């Protein structure tokens, strides 16, 4: 179940992005190895009125099944979960995916911080948090929780992100996280062993 990275075993991956995120996440999903055991959870800021097409958009790019997360559903291995629009996605003990309609965080629902903080509680040192392109500071506090729980942080190198504000904020708050280009993060994912 565990997947060895250069910096430790990975039991789950959380990814957060905002502006420019559809493209960036698409690139990463393309790099996910079909043998990956760890579940992947994604929060991408979206206009809340629109029905989510993300799972449909991402599925053709990804060797693993991609689905919109639902409430209190047991987490399956080798599966990519996308937060539905206008709900926070959390990971609860089980692990289960859970949703909430609590207030937006950083004007966003779903919020990256909410996913990362709850996932850090469940996966502890086995969690890899990835903050990508975006235009607000959501994700910085969440990544701090991931790292405080013993997990690992990766941030898209701000100057290479389509919008640098979000990765820059995450990096500033979490100097111990690794800043990498999207291609290098994709390479990291592709190298995740079974």
């Amino acid at each position: 179940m565990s997947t060895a990275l250069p910096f430790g075993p990975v039991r789950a991956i959380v990814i957060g992005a905002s502006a420019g995120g559809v493209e960036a996440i698409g690139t990463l999903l393309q790099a996910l190895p079909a043998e990956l055991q760890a579940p992947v959870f994604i929060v991408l800021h979206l206009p809340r009125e629109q029905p989510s097409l993300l799972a449909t958009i991402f599925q053709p790019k990804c060797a693993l099944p991609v689905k919109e997360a639902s409430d209190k559903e047991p987490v399956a291995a080798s599966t990519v979960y996308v937060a539905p629009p206008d709900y926070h996605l959390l990971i609860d003990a089980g692990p289960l995916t859970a949703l909430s309609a609590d207030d937006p965080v950083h004007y966003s629902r779903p919020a990256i911080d909410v996913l990362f903080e709850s996932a850090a509680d469940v996966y502890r040192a086995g969690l890899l948090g990835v903050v990508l392109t975006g235009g607000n500071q959501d994700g910085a506090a969440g990544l701090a929780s991931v790292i405080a729980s013993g997990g690992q942080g990766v941030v898209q190198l701000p100057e290479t992100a389509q919008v640098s504000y979000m990765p820059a904020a995450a990096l500033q708050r979490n100097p111990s996280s690794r800043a990498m280009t999207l291609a290098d993060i994709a390479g990291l994912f592709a190298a995740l062993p079974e």
Partner: protein
Amino acid sequence: MDAGLSAVAGEPSVASSDFEIELQLLVEAIYLKYHCDFRSYAKASLKRRMTTAMGRFGCATLSQLQDRILHDPAVFAPMLEYLTVQVSDMFRDPGYFRALREQVLPQLRTYPSLKIWVAGCSTGEEVYSLAILLREEGLLARTIVYATDINAKALQKAEAGVYELERVAGFTANHHASGARSSLSDYYVAGYGNAVFDKSLKKNVVFSDHSLATDSVFAEVHLVSCRNVLIYFDRTLQDRALGLFRDSLVRKGFLGIGSKESVRFSAHAEDFDELAREERIYQKRDGAA
């Protein structure tokens, strides 16, 4: 750990951090002292809300917060806000109200009088949405709406029917998308930055305290609307709530839940048929207890 304590979480105790231990003790303390039962609330959201509350009350740990809550009842009311309130929009998910309008109300119209239960009504946005929908469909005068929540302050706000004017543009767009037969502005008066909704809308609304965790069925109703409440419950409490709804509903009565909630995985899946799948509207199956 004794059996009583492990029952607190509704599952074998696996508290792995101080925070989780403290959370379990705190919800037990609140239950013992105030008879508010959060023991079967979903833990991840509860943790997040408690963390916010710690900041609000200047407590470094949940144990400190527990001390305040036990020894200073004045702290409990504002605390309850953090645990229960969630703000919804009027006509949130317009498709839900459209489905009620097009698929449910035509069937309810055949009854001489109607009863509707809005469970977990919070600050009332959904209550007024339903009242306006019922008025548009000519049914409000013969309907009684029970609007219940565990939060007394939220119920007061619901009863007042006053919302910030800046939220009304969103309400109006939702209302329009629900297949509105009137203009939302027909139902409120604007002033001092607020929209005050027409008192006649709540003439037949009974606002009252009711807990899905500890209280029982109080009326027989034709429609239960309970949206984005079940997601805060664990499976056990979801099953309890759905059981109450089933027992409250008349034969072939209707149940509407949140757009990301489902009865499919519950113990009561067999008691309901899907009426509008996307909009999460169900009909009590004939013969369901």
